[in-house]
Structure formats: C-alpha cells, structure tokens
C-alpha cells in the first residue's frame, strides 16, 4: 500500500484539528511529530517502484527520496518552531497555532502527491495544494500589516506563476495528445508550442524555487511572514520546486535539456551571483536568509546540466544537506527572536558569550552553507560542481566557487557579530528543550554528512 505515508499525514492533520476543538491546549506539536515520524518510517519500509490507481500514483526512486526530503523538512521545521506554536510567552507566538500546523501538514501531503503523480492533472492539483495554503500561512500575523502585505505579494506572484504553468500544461496536452507524463516524453516533437511550453514551465517552477528573474517575492515574504513559515518556505517549498523541475527536465524534456547546458549555466550564474551580491548588503536576518536561499537555488541548478543520473543524485544529496544546515540557522533565528524579538543581524552581537552552544551551532551551519570542508555543505557543492565540470563548464565552476567565497564574506559577517563584537545582549537567550534537542541533532548531522559517505551511496543505489 504505497500511499500509506500520505494517509498517515492526513490522519495526523485531522486528529490535530479535531482534538484542538475539544481538548484544552493539547500538545499538538508532539502529535504532529509522531505522525510525521511514522510516515517517514513507513516510507522506508515501502518497496520502491510500486504503483497504484492504474499507474496514476507511483513510487519511483526520485519520488521516494523527495518524500523523505519533504517529511524531514516538515519534521525539523515544526520542531524548531516549537516556541511559536506552543510557548505562549515567546515573542513570536502565533495565534490559533494548531490551524497553522494543520495547514502545514496538508501542504506536506500535497507535496508528496506532487512527486508521485504521473499525469498533468494530478500534478497540477497537488502543486496548487502545495502552493495556495502557503499564501494563507504568510498572512498569519494578524496584528502586523507586514505579514498581510507579504501574503498579498506572494499570492499575486503565485497566481501569475500557476496560470502560466497551466497555459504551458494545456499546450503540452494539446501537442502531445496525452495527459500522462511518460507518454508525453515519447511524443515530444520540439514544435515551437512545446518550446514555448518549456519556457513557461521554467518560469512557473522558477517562481517556486526562487530562480533569479522570478525571485522577487522571496525577500518580502521571508521578512513579512512568520519565521516558522520562512524556514518552511526556504526548505520544503524550494524542494517541491526542484521536484517539479526534476519531473519536467528529467522525464518530460530530457533530450531538449541535454542541448541546453549553456542556457542552464547562465541562469545558474545569474541566480547565484544576484543572490550573493544582494545578500551582502542585507541588515535584516530573515531577508538575508531569503537571498542566501536564492543563491543556493543557483547551485542546485548546476546539478541539472547534462541530465545524467549522477546530477540528480547530487541534487538530492545537496537538498538533504541544505535542509539540515538551513534549518539549524532558522532554529537559532527563532530561538533568538523568541526571547529578544529582534531580527537585525547586529542584534546577534556577542551571542557566543550569552549562549555559546547556539553560537557554535550557528557557526557550523553557516560554514556548511558557504561550503567549507569537513562540513556537509562542501560535499554537496563539490558534487554539484563536478557535474558542471563533467559537462566541460569549468568557467561555471570558477564562478560558483568565487560566489561561495563572496557568500563566505557575509556568513563571516554574522560570525563576526557573534564571536568578535562585544556583547551588549542584556538578557541571556534561553532555548526551550525540544528546540535544543533538534538543533544539536541537526548540527551533528551537518557535520556527519560531510564525512560519512553512507547517505550518498544510499541515494546512488536507487539510480
């Protein structure tokens, strides 16, 4: 029964919804975590390659790994945003947090369907299920107008993207005569309409994974929306975007993309460079994380060059590594803002003295994001760069490496605040237990992934 994980997630969402009505402040986070964990376990148990509903719902190796990525990101996001969901006294507490949680679980479910779908219809529906509720989550801070404005911008960009996507689907449907993705790949004829569909799809998906020309919404939404959503966006929704790109680039337009290495290289460079350059100048930590995640999208794009399975494996590995590093940083951001309420980078002065463990975890994660060896970020980037090098794009490797040097500049900027500048943090930062556990666990994984090869080999076996 390969749809088991999705069902478990839906059931947990409903139980949280129902229980919240009847029982006074139940520990909904624990229920959600339990649900997600059991879903994760169930996936590992499931046999890869099975299919259901007459081929409509499949569990291909890519689907398998993407589902693990989604569940992992949901698991960590929810546990690090324990403060905003459960702790009433914290400065970033969300009203009606159980609904927030339910919607998040449903989004995850949408993403899992997205990956397993084989036809355009189910793809479109699950994609919308994974996008539209995010607009609602963005507007969760009722009191602040920033949150509503962010949601507005997110809504309109999302709507535009999904309509473009829809138009592209119609062209694909029209020209290939079928809704089924694999049949479509066979019937591909590179007619102008299909090329135009390819571009529109790239635009639509570019919005979701914040490719450069379509990234403008990201900064405002990250800043305006509650941090819990920002972390979720930076990880899960980006992974979903990558998933859709993988479906189309690897399964629907493989031979077209093989000839478009230059095209991909230029987009990747644009994404990386702009993300890094603008991040240099950011003052607000969440806006800063937005641009940092935009530049990460640039590195991921390098994995698509040449459309070979090694590229896909390195993209998957990089996503997993990216989840852990990014969420450690967001965890620290939430911990700091939940006790001090401040979001400016300069507010992190002297964190290494007020809370050394937090500072150390943040430092490791930042180094991993900037691609410094023994940490896992370096490994992820190294494999992505080797894909580009294999295609002969050595200039791209240099540009990417220089970009990660520029990124090192602003990551070190934060470390400078924490370690070098004098501490004026009056109140010491106290971190609630679950957050502390998740952070230390993730930091260990961030370091371990860099050294132990098992995870990479595991993914490799699948392909």
């Amino acid at each position: 029964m390969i749809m088991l994980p999705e069902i478990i997630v839906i059931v947990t969402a409903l139980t949280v919804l129902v229980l919240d009505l009847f029982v006074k402040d139940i520990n909904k986070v624990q229920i959600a975590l339990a649900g997600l964990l059991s879903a994760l376990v169930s996936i590992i148990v499931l046999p890869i390659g099975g299919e259901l509903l007459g081929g409509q719902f499949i569990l291909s190796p890519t689907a398998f790994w993407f589902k693990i990525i989604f569940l992992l990101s949901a698991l960590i996001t929810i546990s690090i945003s324990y403060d905003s969901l459960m702790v009433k006294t914290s400065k970033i507490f969300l009203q009606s947090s159980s609904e927030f949680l339910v919607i998040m679980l449903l989004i995850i479910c949408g993403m899992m369907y997205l990956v397993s779908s084989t036809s355009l219809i189910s793809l479109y529906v699950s994609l919308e299920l994974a996008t539209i509720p995010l607009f609602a989550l963005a507007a969760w801070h009722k009191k602040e107008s920033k949150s509503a404005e962010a949601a507005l911008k997110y809504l309109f960009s999302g709507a535009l993207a999904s309509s473009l996507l829809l138009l592209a689907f119609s062209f694909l449907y029209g020209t290939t005569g079928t809704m089924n993705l694999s049949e479509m790949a066979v019937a591909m004829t590179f007619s102008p309409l299909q090329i135009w569909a390819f571009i529109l799809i790239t635009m639509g998906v570019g919005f979701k994974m914040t490719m450069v020309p379509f990234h403008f919404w990201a900064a405002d939404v990250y800043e305006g929306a509650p941090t819990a959503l920002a972390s979720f966006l930076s990880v899960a929704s980006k992974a979903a975007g990558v998933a859709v790109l993988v479906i189309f680039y690897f399964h629907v337009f493989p031979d077209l993309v093989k000839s478009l290495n230059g095209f991909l290289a230029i987009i990747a460079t644009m994404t990386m460079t702009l993300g890094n350059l603008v991040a240099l100048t950011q003052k607000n930590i969440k806006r800063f994380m937005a641009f940092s995640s935009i530049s990460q999208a640039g590195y991921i794009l390098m994995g698509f060059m040449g459309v070979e399975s090694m590229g896909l494996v390195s993209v998957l590995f990089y996503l997993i590594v990216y989840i852990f590093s990014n969420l450690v940083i967001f965890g620290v951001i939430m911990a700091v803002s939940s006790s001090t309420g401040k979001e400016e980078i300069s507010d992190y002065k002297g964190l290494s003295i007020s809370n050394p463990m937090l500072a150390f975890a943040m430092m490791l994660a930042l180094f991993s994001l900037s691609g410094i060896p023994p940490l896992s970020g370096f490994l992820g980037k190294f494999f992505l760069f080797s894909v580009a090098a294999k295609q002969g794009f050595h200039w791209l490797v240099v540009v990417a490496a220089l970009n990660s040097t520029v990124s090192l500049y602003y990551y070190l900027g934060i470390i400078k605040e924490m370690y070098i500048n004098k501490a004026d943090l009056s109140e010491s930062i106290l971190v609630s237990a679950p957050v502390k556990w998740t952070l230390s666990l993730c930091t260990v994984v961030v370091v371990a992934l860099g050294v132990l090869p098992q995870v990479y080999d595991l993914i490799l076996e699948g392909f």
Partner: protein
Amino acid sequence: MNTYGFFLTNIWLILLIPLLSFIIVGLFIGPKNKKLAGIFATTSIFVCAALAYGATFEYLSLFPLGAEHPVIVPWSVQWMPYLENLTATLGIMVDPLSLLLMMIITTVSSMVHLYSIGYMHGDPGYSRFFTVLNLFTLSMLGLVVAPNILQMFVFWELVGASSFFLIGFYYTKASAVAASKKAFIVTRFADLGFLLGILILSYEAYHLFSLEAFAHLSSYNAFDFNFLNHPEVINALSTADGALLTFALVLLFIGAAGKSAMFPLHIWLPDAMEGPTPVSALIHAATMVVAGVYLVGRLFPLFGSSEVALNVVTYVGAFTCVFAAVIACTQNDIKRVLAFSTLSQLGYMMLSLGVASPLHKLGYLASNFHLMTHAFFKALLFLGAGSIIHAVHSNDIWQMGGLRKKLPVTHITFLMATIAIAGIPPFSGFYSKDEILAAALVNNPIVFIIGLFVAALTAFYMFRIYFLSFCGEAKSDGAKQAKESSISMLIPLIFLSVLSVVSGWFPFEKFFLSEALVHNTPSWLPIVASGSGLLGVLLAYLFYFKKTTYANSVKNGFGPLHTVIQNKFYIDAVYLFVVHKIIFRFIAAPIAWIDRHIVDATMDKTAYVTKESGLVLKKIQTGNIHTYTMMFLLGGLVLFLLLLGVGF
C-alpha cells in the same frame, strides 16, 4: 702515498679547537668567570699556532725546501651535495700558501689574544670579546684552508659577520653601531659580486664535466681549486667563452676588493677603527683584510689566463696605494693613519699580484712575502698605538708627544715597526717591498714609479706620527702622566718586533717554488728603494721633529686641497647620499607606497565593487508588486532570448 705525520693526519684539529673553545667560552665559561674565559681562549689559539707550525714543519720534512711542493688535501668530508659532481666539501687543503697564511693568522691572533687580556681588563663585555675573537680566528682559518671556493665563501661570510660583531663591540656607542653596519653592508655588497662570480664560474666549470675530454677529472667537483686551477680546465674555459671568464674573474675581484677595502669599497675600513684596538690589530691589519689578496693568490693561475682581469687588479691596487697614502699624511687620529696605511700596503700587494703572471711568478711571491711581513709589523704598530692610547687616553696625535721616556718598551717596538714599514734595509719591510718593486719594474714601469713614490709617502706619514707622538715635549696633561702598559701587553709587542725583523730573512723563494727564480733585478734598485724611504724620513724629521712651523706653512700652502684630502675626498658623503637619498627615497619608499596604495587598494577596490553592485541590485527590490510581476515576465523574455541564443 707517503703517510702523513701526526700533525698532517689530524690537521682538522686546527678548525675543531677554535670551534670548541668558541662554544665552551661562549656558553659555559664566559657568563661564569671572566678571567678563565680570557685564558682559555688564548691557550686554545696558542695550541692552534703550535698545530700550524707543526704542520708546516712536517710538510717541509715530507717535501724539502728545494723539491716540488704539491697541494695535498689530508682531510675532507662531503658537506653540501648540490648535484653529482657539483658538491661542496668541507676540508683542509695544505700547500705552501695556506701553510704560510695559517702560520701568520695563528701567530698574530695568539699575540692579540695575549695583548687583549691586559687591554680589555675591566670591560663589561670581556668574555663576549674573547668568544667572538675565537669565532673570528676559526672562520679566518677555515677561509684559508678551504679546498674549494664554496667553503671559502662560507667562511668568508663568517669572517664578515664576526668582524661586524667585533666592530660593533661597544654597541652602546652610536658611531660604533653605524660603523659595524656600514662594514657589514659594504662587504656584503662585495660578497654579492663574489657569489655571482662563483655561480658563473661553477656553472661554466660544471658543463666541462659533460665533455668526455674531462672524464679523467670526474672525481673532482666544479668548486674545487685543484679543478679550477687545472691547466686543461683553464684553457678550456678561456677558449669556450673568454669574455664570460673575465667577467667572472672581475666579479671575484670585486668580492676581494670589498674584503681588502680596495678603492671604491674602502670606506668601511677607516670607520672600522671604532672597534677595540686589538680588533683593529688582528682583523683590520693582519688577517681579514688580507683575505682578498689570498683569494686572488689562490686563484692565481685562473686570473693569469685573462689579461683584462690582471690589469684591473693592477690599476685598482696601484690607485688605492697612492690614494690611501696621500690621505694618511693628513689624518690626525693615530688609528685612522694606520688604517689608511694598511689600505695603501694592501694596494701594494694587489698591484704586485696584478703585475705577476703564470710565467714569471715574482710578483705573486713578492705579494705573499709582503703580506707576511706587513701582517707582523702592522699588527705591532696597531698594538703599539693601542698601548699609547691606553696610556694617553686619546687618539689624537697632536695631544701626544714626549712619550719616549714614559713608554720605553712601546717606544722601541713602535720605532722598529716604523722603520720596517718605511722599507729601510735591515728590516723586513725593505725586502718584501723591494721584491714588489722588482716585479713591477719588469712588467709595468708606471706602476713601478707609483710604488716608489708611495714608498716615500709611507716613510713620511709613519715617521710623522712617530715624531709627533714620541719626540718633542708632551702636548697634553694626559701625555704628561702617561705610564707604561702592563707586562701582558708588552710581551706581544716585543715578540712581534722580533718577528718584524726576522721575517725579512724568510727564504720565500725556495718555500714556494721548486726551482730557483731567475733574478734579473738591476743592482741599483735596492739603493733607489731605500733612498726614497730615507727621503721620506728626512722630510718627516724636518717637518715634525721639533717645531711644526714648516708643516703648518705647507698645509696652508695646499689650502683647501688639504681639507678635501683630510675628509677622505668626501667619498663617504657620496655613499651616504646614494644610499639614503637615491635608494631609500626613490626605490624603497615608492615601493612601500605602491604596495600600500596601489596593489593593496586594488584588492580593497574589488571588495568595494562587489559591495556596490550588491547595493545597486538591491534597488530593484522596490517592494511594489507591479515591478515584481513585470520583472517576472521580463525574466520570461530573457529566458526565451537565451534559448534562442544558446539552445539552437
């Protein structure tokens, strides 16, 4: 091979003993007990002297005076293997020249050690003085016994370094510090020439090994003197690239000129008088300054092969000879006079080497002979001057006078040395200078005349300081209460005075050559030589014996020329100007500025540009939804164009 006696087999002791005593005195005895340090150091040098004399005796017993004097290398060990036969070995080479030098160095050094026990009494840096003096003797001996040119360069630099420490012994005195710095940097500059000379020479010689004609020499190394002086190698080198060989030899001569303070590089020797007088006696009279002459002497067959190199040596030597003698006449500080006199005697040695050639070696023999005799009487002069200064507490000859009765022993020994240097017959100076003039007469008449004129000048300025300091009445109260120095200072004076007479009769011809040299010196030469010497003495007597009226009138007659000469032709000022004004201001400062403002600034600029571009790109984030979605569609257009451009 006949077996070597005791001395020759462990000749390496001559290097080991000074090294051990340097370490022991320096690290262990020095800080604890000053007195013992002095004695220990002096005894170790005496042992070395004994070794040197023993070795010479043994060498002569193996190869008697008349017979062939081969070059033997009793001990050598691999030191620095660059390449297959480009390896520098550390060893001891024994041949008449090196034995002669070994004897001179150990004798003078032991005398100076003995003298400084008394002279340095009470000085806070007493043990430090003896440590560095031992180091100096070690490096000088190492230089002299070097079987290859690289080992010579190694000890050459160590000699320079120890002279740096000794000149700068009174390190609290600013002038001493400046003098030591100047000495080291000028000699270092000359060593650059020396090193470049070695590099070119060894490069050329190394390539000979590849030719099969030299297969039989493959046991040698490109650095060894035996190889470089080997006749086949010499003509191979001169035929291959004569100009390059001459260039290398001139470079080597620059190194020698620096160390022996020849004309352009002489500025450091007068300032080196800042060091204690025993140092000046040992280093700046007898041993170190002679290293340059020894270098040219050691590579004499090679120098002989290129005319140009020999001419350079001759004329630089001759010019320095005259130049220094003229300046010596005008100096007032007794040690400066002696310094310039050393300069001019070195000029003598150089010109006599230049004048000689492999065919008739008279010049080569005369220069080494003069080297020996000069070492003894010049050391004596310096030590004598030291005891005068010790008594009168001032260097200025115009404040001395009438010391004849107050310092009897110093007076007699000083007089004997002055006569010797003036070249008056019974004393050693006459014999060696006569040989040089004979060699010069045969090859280069102009140089002969210069030599003659300088002989007169030498006699004049030497007797000038003799009359001013010892005769007439005491011109200052210091001179009035002058007392004779202690016994430990007088013994060396007496010993050296005996030597400066005896050394004249040294059978140098038979010592160096197997067959006797054909003598065609005209009979009138000795008379003319000693005559010019006596003329000089007479002039000095007239000028300075009683009243110095004549001297003043002559000085005013010369007028401004006199002051120019007194200031050493302002050459020091020229050097200071070149170094400070030109090198520091126009090269070092701009480079430091460029580094700070251009190279560094470009790095900062790139960082600034990235930051600026970040700010520019940030402006696109206007926050207005229309711009976002407009950018969205523009992006689509860009993709399309890209697809057109790249894709198809």
